[in-house]
């Protein structure tokens, strides 16, 4: 499926890399490694019985998160995230310590341990939270877009969702409303090929989910979601369009989750060969290779960046370990303002 998408042109890739600059590019690479390390650590902690609930790992999707978030003014624009959202937390620049502490249900977590993996938010930086409901954030993005328009700021809202969400009724209502009012919203679909066990081939008749954009007369684009620059390019253009008052864009990023949907997944619906095939398209080495080729990093630096990403997660776990459990006396805090 990803083969049906044209690769980004060499000249355009070089132009984007120059625009991003070596410093930010290195940071993006490190965020991707940190995301992978976070997910691996999450899995390990789960195995040790350290976590209370389930989790949805984004290993294999790190490039999609880095490319999309770094194309925006993180902390000024708005992010609505989904349930497989640890990578978006980090790529948005939200604090890894507090994200890990939330994952472990601690008072020092972003949501004081009330939200957990599926509801982590960093409201102060306009990160309006992960969402436990498939398509739950999509209608909220309409309100975010309306609010931006009424307040007359040049902000943009991006809502992340998966292929499964595109088959919820809320998707249709929301894209239509955003389109008729030219709202500054980017609908960013991470098509990781499966809604739990439902393969996209069984759930859609269109080849690309982005084709649905034509129903709303807005641009729709499918990109290689495992190529950071392709994603960055598409989201940058959508953001510019939104800021210019020309309305929403639907972007579909083709990617793949290496792990199961959640802990209950026995992966009976796909083959090992398929997983292996996608692992060969691993977004992290691909971005690393680009940076090496551009002379942004040396082989040695590449290794150091990777190590720093993994080291960051060790620090985050230490922070979370030092954070207390919430006090039961505060059980009912925060229900009402």
């Amino acid at each position, binding site marked *: 499926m990803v083969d049906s998408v044209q690769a980004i042109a060499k000249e355009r890739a070089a132009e984007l890399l120059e625009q991003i600059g070596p410093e930010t590019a290195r940071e993006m690479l490190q965020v991707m490694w940190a995301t992978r390390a976070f997910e691996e650590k999450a899995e390990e902690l789960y195995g040790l019985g350290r976590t209370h609930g389930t989790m949805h790992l984004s290993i294999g999707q790190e490039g999609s998160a880095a490319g999309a978030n770094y194309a925006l003014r993180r902390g000024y624009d708005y992010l609505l995230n989904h349930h497989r959202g640890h990578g978006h937390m980090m790529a948005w620049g939200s604090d890894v310590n507090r994200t890990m502490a939330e994952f472990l249900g601690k008072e020092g977590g*972003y949501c004081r341990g009330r939200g957990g993996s599926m509801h982590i938010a960093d*409201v102060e930086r306009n990160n309006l939270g992960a969402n436990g409901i498939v398509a739950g954030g999509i*209608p909220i993005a*309409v*309100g975010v877009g309306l609010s931006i328009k009424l307040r007359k700021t040049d902000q943009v809202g991006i809502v992340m969702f998966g292929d499964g969400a595109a088959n919820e009724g809320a998707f249709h209502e929301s894209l239509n409303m955003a389109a008729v009012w030219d709202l500054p919203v980017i609908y960013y679909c991470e098509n990781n090929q499966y809604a739990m066990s439902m393969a996209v081939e069984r759930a859609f008749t269109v080849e690309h989910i982005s084709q649905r954009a034509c129903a709303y007369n807005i641009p729709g684009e499918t990109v290689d979601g495992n190529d950071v620059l392709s994603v960055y390019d598409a989201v940058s253009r959508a953001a510019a369009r939104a800021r210019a008052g020309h309305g929403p864009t639907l972007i579909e990023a083709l990617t793949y989750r290496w792990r199961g949907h959640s802990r209950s997944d026995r992966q009976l619906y796909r083959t090992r060969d398929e997983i292996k095939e996608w692992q060969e398209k691993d977004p992290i080495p691909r971005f690393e290779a680009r940076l090496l080729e551009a002379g942004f990093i040396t082989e040695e630096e590449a290794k150091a960046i990777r190590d720093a990403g993994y080291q960051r997660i060790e620090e985050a776990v230490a922070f979370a370990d030092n954070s207390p459990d919430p006090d039961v006396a505060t059980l009912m*805090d*925060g229900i009402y*303002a």
Partner: protein
Amino acid sequence: MPEPRELTYMEALREGLRQAMETDERVFLIGEDIGVYGGAFGVSAGLIDQFGGERVIDTPISEAGIAGAVTGAAMTGMRPVGEIQFMDFVTLSMEQLVLQAAKVRFMFGGKATVPFVLRMPGGSGTGAAAQHSESLENWFVHVPGLKVVMPSNAYDAKGLLLASIYDDNPVIFIEHKLLYKTKGHVPEEMYQVPLSSTNVAREGTDLTVVATSVMVQRALEAAAQLAGEGIEIEVVDPRTLLPLDDAPIIESVKKTGKLLIVHEAVGTGGFGGEIAARVAASDAFDYLDAPIRRLTGKDMPIPYNRMLEYHTVPQVENIVEEARKLAQGAY
């Protein structure tokens, strides 16, 4: 002294909306046919002329989208007032209201606010039959994080609406179609009736009637009739169902020793059960001289036929009869 200024319930709502929009740029209206059409019942008539289509926003028929729009706008600094054309249609908004709007603040550790009002007309009596006559307030009463408001008269309609707009929580604001044309004293200035402030609408000594929405008016009529027979009913109107201010209800029952609860929604799983349980669990229990009684909509959909519809929900004569029996010791 000049006559007190009178407005209809609908005019009171419209005046509240207008004044909020005049004084606060964060307030805007969004809903189906609320612009030039003026809303299905006319509440927003004329507001688009004053504020334009940017702040009186007509939407496609998209109730989940409307609920999402008010939620997202509220989370990002606005104070939207949405309209669901008939309360029945809010069934199409439930995910956004119940799983998003009501919960984000709590889920995010108390770090988001969702200050919106979602207005909707409920209730029967217009021949609109089963899909346009629902009283679903208790669906929302069961959702912590939401507030549920049901004004029973013109004065409260404006004051509760303004209080709801300036409350920092998502408020489900349930109007009643039959009340839109009822008149009452409504001051011109902006005023708020505090949320969660139960009101004793009529004082009495023999029996407490707790009623909501249009049933408050019917209970007051019943009380006037029974006063002629020497039975003095105290009518108590919660006004806000969630969070409920139950102290005045408990105090009233301690005074009268008898409790009748009247609402239009179906009885089973209805708000009356909550009132009964709170009174039974309170120190008012020792003061009860008779079983707690409920008079509610029958456990059935609203029928079309005028006579059948009439007999589906409590009417004044039903309240008179039930209150009389309770007051006279029939139970």
